């Protein structure tokens, strides 16, 4: 009698958990996923965009599956945040040593009008050799940004040029392409490196 009650609770509990999970899926990946930012990035396996890396190879989210990945957005005309982020990441990669070699590290420009393949090639050469630079057509960049639930905006400057506001977080995915976590801009190295290690160790 008592055992049956416990079993009943267990079944009810499992049912509740299943509906929570189902609802979670519906909200995050399923038809309930809103288009706006402030949400978790999609898994790489369901993203859809096509870009060119700094060596001229055709690349997309599928190129990242199979190895853990670290992806971030920026632009090479950025004087402060972007070189700082690339230099932070270079430092984290140095700290990870050999572990970093089995990782994809990708810098996607939000300013393809100025950041050509050649520009990206020169720019990434100043940082850790694992960092790849991706650029491409405006609509494909926009599509990529949407998949990461990131955002960017072109802003004119008083000097007559323009700058780009953009998401400065670093996104981490496991080897199956599942989103693991993100490293916010200004997050201290003590937190960043363990987060990367977790993405590296995550079994899928």
């Amino acid at each position: 009698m008592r055992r049956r009650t416990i079993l009943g609770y267990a079944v009810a509990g499992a049912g509740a958990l299943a509906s929570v999970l189902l609802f979670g899926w519906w909200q995050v990946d399923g038809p309930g996923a809103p288009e706006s930012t402030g949400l978790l990035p999609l898994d790489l396996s369901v993203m859809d965009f096509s870009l060119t890396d700094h060596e001229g190879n055709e690349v997309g989210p599928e190129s990242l599956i199979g190895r853990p990945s670290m992806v971030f957005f920026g632009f090479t005309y950025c004087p402060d945040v972007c070189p700082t982020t690339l230099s932070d990441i270079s430092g984290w990669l140095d700290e990870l040593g050999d572990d970093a070699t089995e990782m994809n590290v990708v810098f996607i420009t939000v300013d393809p009008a100025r950041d050509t393949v050649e520009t990206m090639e020169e720019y990434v050469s100043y940082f850790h050799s694992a960092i790849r630079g991706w650029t491409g057509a405006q609509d494909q960049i926009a599509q990529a940004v949407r998949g990461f639930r990131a955002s960017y905006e072109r802003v004119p400057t008083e000097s007559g040029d323009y700058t780009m506001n953009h998401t400065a977080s670093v996104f981490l995915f496991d080897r199956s392409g599942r989103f693991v976590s993100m490293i916010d801009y200004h997050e201290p190295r003590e937190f960043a490196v363990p987060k990367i290690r977790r993405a590296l160790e995550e079994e899928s």
Partner: protein
Amino acid sequence: MQIGKAVVKKNHLIKVLVSLLTFVGAPTSTLAGSEDLVVEGAWARASIGTSRPGAAYMSIRNTGDTPVTIVGLATPIAQMSEIHETRTNAEGVSSMSSAGEITIEPGQNVALEPGGLHAMLMRLQSPMQEGESFPLTLKFDNGSTVEIVVPILGIAARGPSE
């Protein structure tokens, strides 16, 4: 960004304190001269050519006994230069804009650091090459100016110590 915010907040608090002191009749003091402004740890990141803006960083301390406001920057290597602030919002989106007037209270320090305040060097006249340096003049509201020499570090540099 966080540093910038902290400075602004602190400045605001000090402004309040200073105005209170003034109200109760604090002794009047002489204007801070350039000898009261100490600029330390200046460095800049190398640029790629001249089409991109450059950034320089430093710490500015007011050792005098009156508040001093930075009103302008000038350098022969850039047609336009001003102090900018990078802000990162709750959604993780970074943006950059003019920091406006920055007042340094007596005994206080303003840090221009990556991700916070920076001296934005626009329309470069010559590329900023690693290993070289350039002069930068800081102008203050009391009419004083401070000229410093800024060493240029690598593009991937995080500061003079690294």
